[in-house]
């Protein structure tokens, strides 16, 4: 019973209809209007006497709510979510940057490893080449030496051989002279003997 007597008097006769509490007391569950009460028994949600007040207060409260939402709450929650998305994106960027760095480090490590290996190979190659060259040079020197010695030996052999061959004629002549003297007691001239030796040697 919030309607004061003064207020009730100030309103038009339908002011009584504004007193829903009274209506609630008299009407039944069926919502059927009771007798003699100027339509106060309407189903409360359909009671048009408070519509203006409801709409006004809805406009005020919902308008205020809308303002609060659009000016304070939504920018704030939107800001929170955006900050979080930015932060996540930033962290992902950082992670991918670090991964890139790690990849680069691995690549440079691999490269250094490969170059060190190549360097090792080249050192080994040079050493092998040098050893080979030295061996070849040594062998050539030794071979040259040997060839020289062989040549000297061959010349000596040829000398000896030719000297020996030169002596063979004289020995044959002497032998032939002695043989002829013993066999036939006569003598033959040196020239005949030489011719005979030469003829037999020529065979």
């Amino acid at each position, binding site marked *: 019973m*919030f*309607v*004061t007597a003064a*207020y009730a008097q*100030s*309103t038009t006769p339908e002011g009584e209809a*504004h007193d*829903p*509490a009274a*209506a*609630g*007391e008299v*009407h*039944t*569950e069926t*919502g059927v209007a009771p007798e003699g009460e100027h339509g106060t028994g309407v*189903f*409360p*949600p*359909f*009671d*048009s*006497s*408070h*519509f*203006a*007040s*409801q*709409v*006004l*207060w*809805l*406009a*005020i*409260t*919902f308008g*205020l*709510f*809308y303002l*609060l*939402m*659009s000016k*304070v*709450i*939504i920018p*704030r*929650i*939107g*800001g*929170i*979510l955006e*900050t*979080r998305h930015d*932060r996540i994106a930033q962290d992902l960027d950082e992670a991918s940057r670090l991964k890139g760095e790690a990849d680069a480090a691995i690549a440079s490590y691999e490269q250094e490893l490969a170059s060190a290996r190549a360097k090792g190979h080249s050192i080994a190659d040079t050493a092998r080449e040098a050893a080979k060259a030295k061996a070849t040079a040594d062998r050539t020197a030794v071979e040259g030496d040997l060839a020289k010695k062989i040549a000297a030996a061959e010349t000596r052999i040829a000398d000896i051989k030719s000297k020996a061959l030169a002596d063979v004629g004289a020995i044959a002549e002497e032998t032939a002279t002695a043989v002829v003297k013993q066999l036939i007691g006569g003598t033959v001239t040196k020239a005949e003997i030489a011719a005979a030796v030469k003829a037999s040697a020529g065979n």
Partner: protein
Amino acid sequence: MSNDPTHQFLVNKIVPIEIGGIDFSFTNASLFMVATVGAAAGFLYLTTSERGLIPTRMQSVSEMSYEFIASMLREGAGSHGMKFFPMVFSLFMFILTANLLGMFPYFFTVTSQIIVTFALAVFVIGTVILYGFYKHGLSFLKLFVPHGVPGALLPLVVAIEVISFLSRPISLSVRLFANMLAGHITLKVFAGFVASLSAFGALGIGGAVLPLLMTVALTGLEFLVAFLQAYVFAVLTCMYLNDAVHPGSH
């Protein structure tokens, strides 16, 4: 009086105000509108005041409702519809909070008043119409002319489209109002059975178990309905706004 299921919907004046012969009294309905705004805005404000990078439980509730409505609107009305995000978010939070506050015993349910839901629906449809004409001019009327309809059928189809458009504010408001009203009345009736049956002695108390179980079950259902109706209102708002943003796209 206390057993009257419609008593909970009575509007009582708290501070009588009258301007120009029209009754603008501050009523219990107004009080609960203020309470709805206070509770919803207060919750959203206080839970997000830390602006935590890692949200607390309550902060994630606020963030989830934000993202829930944002994705609903983006799916319903596209990225162009996002300019209506404050509106849809406010509607959803307001209706949801009003519905949930109405679940408290002795609390007034703001959304069980047809005038309130109708005003909200008119606000939505009014926004659709105003934005549609403002953005697209007369081509907004293409909304009523679907593509690929044979010429002979066109007048009929246009008439149907117009009627369906005009019935939107009614269906939108009645759906929410009727759900809240019917749910609360049913709850009250079953709870009333418990009280009146238990007045009949031992047998009555035994018999009162059934409506009591029913009341408990209905209370759970009503919480679901409270959320569902706010969701449905917001989804339909998104769909209607899609017509304002992209008329003739359906």
